[in-house]
């Protein structure tokens, strides 16, 4: 190395990739202002509007019969969609991560499909298949089975939209972990099911919990697909997000924002638990997060 280079004083202390103070302040400032304007302010507004007429008005929004039925339906939908996608997600990621087969890439692409399709289109697909004028419509009508504008349609649409969450999280995680531990368990005499319960499941538990959390948040908050198949029948086929819209359209702002605050609260709790999981089990989740 030339001595001229070595004797020149460093322009700045610290790493070569560090920017000057002014640039740093500017960048951080822009980020903070943007977040405040587009995330924090709306969130605060939701709660301010919800409590605009005090506690009693706020609580009244939930005691009303339609609101309670919307809460029940949302919980029911999530209670079906989340376990379904949990089981499906584990099976799909197991198949993709631990076996070699033809059409594997196609399967992975298909699992991703709901992420790339607009939720409204997802809902329309179900209307076109199960609706009165749809593919299976006449048959369903003849057997007195109603799917569209009823609870089954809402559940189906929610399942479709939340389909990728668990699988997308687990596939890279399982791929990274490989099959050696399962093989070890089998050579030690464990049955396939025993090996799955005692080796595979514990290895993916935190990634699984993380993905279920995200899946649940989406299942409860889904609007577009559910809106198309629901028919907006108050007290029957309204989920929480749909209920918010209806109240808002009726200029019932307090009730609308009160119900919205419930969803916002759900989002905050999800965010909190998600951060806790990421902080505590970052290594086990990271493999999955990289896949997104």
């Amino acid at each position, binding site marked *: 190395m030339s001595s001229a280079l070595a004797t020149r004083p460093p322009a700045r202390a610290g790493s070569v990739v560090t920017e000057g103070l002014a640039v740093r302040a500017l960048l951080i400032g822009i980020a903070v202002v943007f977040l405040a304007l587009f995330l924090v302010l709306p969130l605060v507004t939701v709660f301010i509007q919800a409590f605009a007429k005090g506690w009693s008005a706020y609580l009244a929004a939930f005691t009303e019969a339609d609101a309670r039925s919307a809460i029940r339906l949302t919980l029911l939908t999530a209670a079906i969609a989340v376990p379904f996608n949990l089981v499906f997600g584990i099976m799909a990621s197991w198949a993709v991560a631990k076996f070699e087969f033809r059409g594997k890439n196609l399967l992975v692409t298909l699992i991703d499909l709901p992420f790339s399709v607009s939720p409204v289109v997802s809902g329309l697909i179900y209307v076109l298949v199960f609706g009165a004028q749809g593919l299976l419509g006449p048959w369903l009508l003849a057997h007195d089975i109603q799917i569209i504008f009823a609870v089954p349609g809402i559940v189906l649409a929610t399942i479709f939209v939340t389909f990728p969450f668990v699988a997308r999280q687990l596939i890279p995680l399982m791929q990274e972990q490989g099959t*050696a*531990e399962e093989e*070890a*368990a*089998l*050579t*030690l005499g464990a049955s396939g099911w025993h090996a799955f319960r*005692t080796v595979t499941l*514990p*290895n993916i538990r935190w990634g699984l919990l993380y993905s279920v959390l995200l899946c649940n948040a989406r299942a409860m908050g889904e609007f577009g697909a559910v809106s198309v198949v629901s028919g907006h029948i108050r007290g029957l086929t309204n989920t929480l997000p749909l209920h918010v819209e209806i109240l808002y359209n009726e200029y019932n702002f307090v009730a609308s924002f009160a119900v919205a605050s419930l969803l916002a609260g759900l989002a905050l709790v999800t965010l909190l638990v998600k951060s806790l999981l990421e902080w505590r089990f970052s290594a086990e989740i990271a493999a999955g997060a990289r896949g997104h």
Partner: protein
Amino acid sequence: MGSSTAIRVEGLSKTFDTAAVLHDLSLDVRAGELLALLGPSGSGKTTLLRIIAGLDFPDRGRIIFGADDATRVPVQERAVGFVFQHYALFKHMSVAENIAYGLNARKRADRPAKAEIKRRVGDLLDLIKLSGFADRYPSQLSGGQRQRIALARALAVEPRVLLLDEPFGALDAQVRKDLRRWLREIHDRTGQTTIFVTHDQDEALELSDRVAVLSKGRLEQIGTPDEVQENPVSSTVLKFLGDTIEVEAIAQGSEVRVNGRLTPVKAPPGLVGPVKLYARPWQLQFAEPGQAHLEGHVRSSYRSQGRQRIEVDRPEGKTVVVEASDTHRLAAGRPVGLTINAGYVFKD
């Protein structure tokens, strides 16, 4: 050593996608022996081990355990202990839970009592000299310790045969040496029939009772370390077991000539005409140019572990390494002759 056959491999063939990895491979494993499967990567040695374990299945051929055909027996029922290159310990279980896994996985009727399992785990921890480590987790252990735990876990189910897939491959040199000696001790003490896969000749020759040399999915030779070193059946085996110098030669009767000069090497019956003579670096000796089998110029020399290694450039452009105990150093560029004292002759 008992010479009864513990495992018989008969005519094994296996193809992955379109690449054949095993061709009609047969070999016998004797009860109580420590057998090394030695071969370069891609020789099919790991596939053979996995087929014996039941982790892979052959396209053709049979695996016979004792008197029973085990070819289609699922891995759980084969009673094999398998040790993986990267340990494959259960990360979320303690050392004791790892070792007890196989016993706990048994059906209730066959499962030993809790106290009995605890005693067996304790005995195994003593055997691998990790008695105080029962409650540790794999992430708190070094690579060598993990591999010992993996071995104890495999031994816990009292397997018929212990299978080790490159057991020391992921460890650094010093730990590897210690573990080799330690594995030999364990084997001597337990008398467990053991097969291990390695691509390291030293490891195979030092550890095993017999070595099976594999190449391109075929068994080249099986024998004691002495047998395969003294009487290699092919140039493949010879080359794989150590450094060789390859020389064009002419066989006539049993006589072998290099550059027209007679060598002390005898050609096997039936081998006549142009042949290849292979010599180890220590089977050559320096001589005056003009009176030797080979000639060349010293390129460089270095000393390692009490031996002098001299690189000699030969006129045809090949460089050979000669090993000598000579303490005098040969200057670079100096013309030298090389006399062949011993070697092996093959057609190719």
